[in-house]
């Protein structure tokens, strides 16, 4: 479009339409095409003070195609009627714009769900962090149930209770006597006589909850468990650190397992510690997987 204007003799710029005698003394506007698809238009005009002004404009032309139903287009041109007759086009005082609403469809929507539940859970987590927790087995700062020595060291009270109950409860039916409970509620057989919740497990003490356990590889030979614990404790409560050591030399084998009390902490630690420089090596951190493929 700009080129057609340029080619028309005697007509230089729409801005100068009113004063053709002045336009003749002004240089023609020059349009150059830029590499980035824009156009630069250099034109001259006289301002109110009669001074010649050079104007450089950079223009980018974009074509916006919009399809519209011809019926809709026609209705848009209708003259307003009723109380709106003779009012200017565009929304009037009967129309206001509301505040922005975020509407995001999601699977498993719950009324008032996401926004309200999250802080509640956070509060609970915070309370948990502030709480003084002491393990009854090893006096560490974790729950007794989460104790890494749970399987190897029995809890002191539990040991005595087992002794007393074991004698009384010869058969499984004598549930109340066996547990020494006062509530009289039904106790499943596998929980009687002070036994722990789970039945016998195949893995023994080697089987653990791997959900919050990280495998750390490429650990320096000279590393100590305490070093790892210090490093990983920054990201949450560490319940266990196991550093594999060579039996003969006593040096680290180069890999370790770190368990967290909270899986969220473990995930964060995994993300942050992966690629962390420790000693002269770069750590590789990932979630520990079950060894077998069952």
């Amino acid at each position, binding site marked *: 479009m700009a080129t057609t204007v340029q080619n028309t003799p005697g007509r230089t710029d729409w801005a100068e339409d009113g004063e053709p005698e002045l336009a003749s003394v002004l240089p023609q506007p020059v349009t150059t095409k830029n590499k980035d698809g824009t156009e630069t238009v250099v034109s001259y005009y006289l301002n109110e003070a009669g001074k010649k002004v050079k104007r450089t404009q950079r223009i980018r032309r974009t074509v916006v195609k919009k399809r519209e*139903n011809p*019926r*809709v287009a026609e*209705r*848009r041109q*209708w003259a*307003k*009627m*009723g*109380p*709106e*007759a003779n009012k200017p*086009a*565009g*929304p*009037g005082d*009967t*129309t*206001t*714009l*509301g*505040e*922005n*609403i975020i*509407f*995001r*469809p*999601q*699977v*498993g*929507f719950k*009324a*008032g769900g996401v926004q309200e539940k999250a802080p509640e859970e956070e509060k609970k987590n915070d309370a948990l962090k502030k709480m003084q927790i002491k393990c009854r087995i090893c006096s560490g700062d974790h729950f007794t149930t989460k104790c890494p020595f749970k399987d190897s060291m029995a809890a002191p009270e539990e040991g005595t209770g087992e002794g007393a109950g074991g004698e009384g409860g010869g058969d499984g039916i004598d549930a109340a006597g066996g547990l020494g409970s006062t509530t009289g509620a039904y106790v499943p057989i596998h929980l009687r006589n002070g036994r722990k919740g789970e039945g016998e497990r195949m893995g023994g003490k080697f089987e653990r909850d791997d959900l919050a356990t990280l495998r750390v590889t490429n650990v320096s030979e000279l590393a100590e468990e305490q070093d790892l614990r210090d490093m990983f404790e920054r990201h949450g409560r560490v319940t266990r650190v196991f550093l594999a050591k060579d039996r003969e030399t006593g040096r680290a084998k180069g890999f370790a397992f770190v368990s967290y009390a909270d899986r969220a902490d473990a995930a964060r630690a995994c993300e942050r510690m992966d690629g962390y420089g420790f000693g002269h090596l770069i750590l590789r951190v990932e979630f520990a997987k079950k060894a077998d493929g069952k």
Partner: protein
Amino acid sequence: MRPILLSGHERALTQVKFSKEGDLIFSVSKDHIVCAWYSANGERFGAYKGHQGALWTVDVDPTTTLLATGGADNTMRLWEVRTGKLLKTWDYATSVKRVEFSEDGRQLLAVTEKRTGQLSTVYIYDISPDPSEPAPSEHALRIVVDEQPRVTVAGFSYLNHFIIMGHEDGSVSQWDAKSGEHIKDNYSHEDGMQVSDLQWSADRTYFLTASKDKTAKLHDTATLEVLKTYTADTPLNSAAICPDPQQYVILGGGQAAMDVTTTSQRQGKFEARFYHKVFEEEIGRVRGHFGPLNSVAVDPTGKCYCSGGEDGYVRVHHFDPPYFDFQFEVEREARAESRI
């Protein structure tokens, strides 16, 4: 999405309706006025004045030339959309609870209320789409509903084969649109919970009813079989089907108007609820109204929806990309498979 608030009414909205191309919204309320709005920017095109009582219902013909309204002044009126000219007034013995044009716009039905000495009656008129031709005073067909409970809503099925009615006791019934014979019933909603709204799918082979029993049900037009049920936690006043390809339905309701002052806005549940049409699962809500939603309508082109509330506002929402992109995992998989 930023809702556009239309505040042309002074009293509770009773029905909102889109034109076929989705560019105009017609709203009626208890303040005797019919308003027409451009859906794109919320500009009021005009108002149709003449009714002497609260308005219950509005419908526009498929060419957006004629507008029918009915209300508590016992009249149904026909207007020319463009000029606001009153073309015809039909007088009845009781108030008009529902008006609807047929799919082709050549027939118009009116449901009159059952009141002392008067039975629920459905009148059907043959209408010419040309506004210069006079509309007939005589009805083409009259169905007096005697044996069934009071009619609350009604509409024309595909090809004007049937007339489907929703009743006060929560049942739906099917009638022959030519002879006026009663064909069948289905007691789909809980007994005594009235059908508050009936809206059609694009091809009118199925329809959605909303009921005070807190559910909306998708019915097959030919068999009246319930295809899907959407359960909400509040009495429903209205339910709309989103056009393809989006597989959603929108339900609107809330605490009954008389109980509103005793409950907070939160408890009132004044939200538009979106359900997946096929999986019957709630996928989201849109808040905003200060009172129950009396009517929801979806743009037939699928770009926006609007809701009219007891609070006197019409809120128009133009959908954002998440609305168009959302899919269930199985839908995504099915699409991926079909691509292979």
